[in-house]
């Protein structure tokens, strides 16, 4: 839209330029630039989404490394990949990781990288709870919630052309700025409506994968019961609606939840895998 206005403004300006025969104004080049800006603001293609995601994931891993437990990391990847297979983006390079951090949180990175903290896994009681959390994050990737937020913020923070540069060139100050912004987004959080959509779709994705659909609500109950002053919760509570509000919003999903409540919780497998 802004690009269109710019084009219109340039078109209006043209007769004056022609009249004064300004030697240094290359009208075609200006139109190209405006088109470029328009392109960058409209759509980030999937390969670019994946590359942005890898760069943001590398930064998050700089804040907290992976938990040094290879069997647990493989287990979480199998749960996550099975969930992702039930969605409209089954072929993304899905990767799941448990971060060695005491905080209680989970993160979805554009392009199919998902993190859950040790602090959150420690508070889960079954594989269906793990699946519920991972499915919520998978939903963020499907709906490109973070990608859209990064893009929106980058348009404000980076001039139109600089965003195009940041997308095209993987090294450089524009790229650094974009990725730094993308990482900081996890401190600011998404819109509340994105989080509630993640919960609704997460319940459906876990049910599709054959899990007890109440895994995510059960985790939300655990979180709701924790002391809100607990420092391990600070960032998650700042960036998400309260667990009580999220549980209340899931009342609308009760029919779906109940229809798939009797599917496996897989308590034993979860305990066996997390105890190794």
């Amino acid at each position, binding site marked *: 839209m802004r690009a269109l206005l710019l084009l219109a403004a340039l078109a209006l300006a043209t007769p004056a330029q022609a009249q004064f025969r300004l030697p240094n104004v290359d009208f075609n080049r200006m139109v190209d630039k405006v088109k470029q800006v328009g392109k960058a603001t409209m759509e980030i293609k999937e390969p670019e989404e994946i590359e942005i995601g890898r760069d943001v994931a590398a930064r998050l891993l700089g804040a907290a490394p992976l938990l040094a437990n290879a069997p647990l990391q493989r287990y979480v990847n199998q749960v*996550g990949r099975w969930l992702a297979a039930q969605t409209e983006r089954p072929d993304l390079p899905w990767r799941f990781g448990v971060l060695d951090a005491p905080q209680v949180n989970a993160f979805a990175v554009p392009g199919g990288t998902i993190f859950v903290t040790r602090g959150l896994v420690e508070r889960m009681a079954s594989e269906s709870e793990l699946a519920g959390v991972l499915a919520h994050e998978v939903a963020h990737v499907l709906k490109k919630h973070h990608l859209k937020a990064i893009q929106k913020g980058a348009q404000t923070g980076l001039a139109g052309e600089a965003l195009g540069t940041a997308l095209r060139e993987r090294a450089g100050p524009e790229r650094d700025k974009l990725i730094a912004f993308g990482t900081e987004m996890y401190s600011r959080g998404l819109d509340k409506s994105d989080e509630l959509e993640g919960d609704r779709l997460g319940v459906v994705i876990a049910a599709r994968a054959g899990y007890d659909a109440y895994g995510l609500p059960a985790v939300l109950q655990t979180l709701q*019961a924790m002391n809100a002053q607990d420092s391990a919760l600070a960032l998650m509570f700042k960036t998400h609606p309260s667990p009580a509000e999220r549980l209340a919003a899931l009342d609308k999903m009760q029919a779906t939840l109940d229809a798939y409540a009797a599917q496996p919780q897989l308590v034993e497998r979860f305990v066996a895998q997390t105890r190794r």
Partner: protein
Amino acid sequence: MRALLPLLLAVPLIVVAAEPASLIRATELKQEPATDAATVARLPENAAVQALERKGGWIHVKAASGEGWVRLLALRYAAGPARQGDSGAKQLFNVARTGTSGTEVTTGARGLDAEQLANARPNPAELAKMGAFAAEADAAARFAAQGKLMATNVAYPK
């Protein structure tokens, strides 16, 4: 790594221990975890209960008027340190990690606070390691079958 094991072991035990909770709306206490099960009692809004284990969308509770099952979405655990799960687990973790029962560890020297996210430098080595743990679709399908997970069609809401 070993330090983590005691806590992960302890978690399911904490979850099945009776925990104080209350009801956010008037709710039927059922004999079994099912809508068509016999009603043991009608519990009023804000009724205090002791919550035991979960089965699907139902929580096994002990109430003043008897024992039975209530809907998960009608129940909220009591918040705060009074609940055994958090502070208890955290103390276990501290004991395991540091050999003391101090509480200073809970903040964490590193991790995922806003400040640490803002100052994070890329860690490409960890990113590469993560790629090595990725699961292929067919391996994930076998893993699901081992757990008797059956894929099923469920429509998105709306």
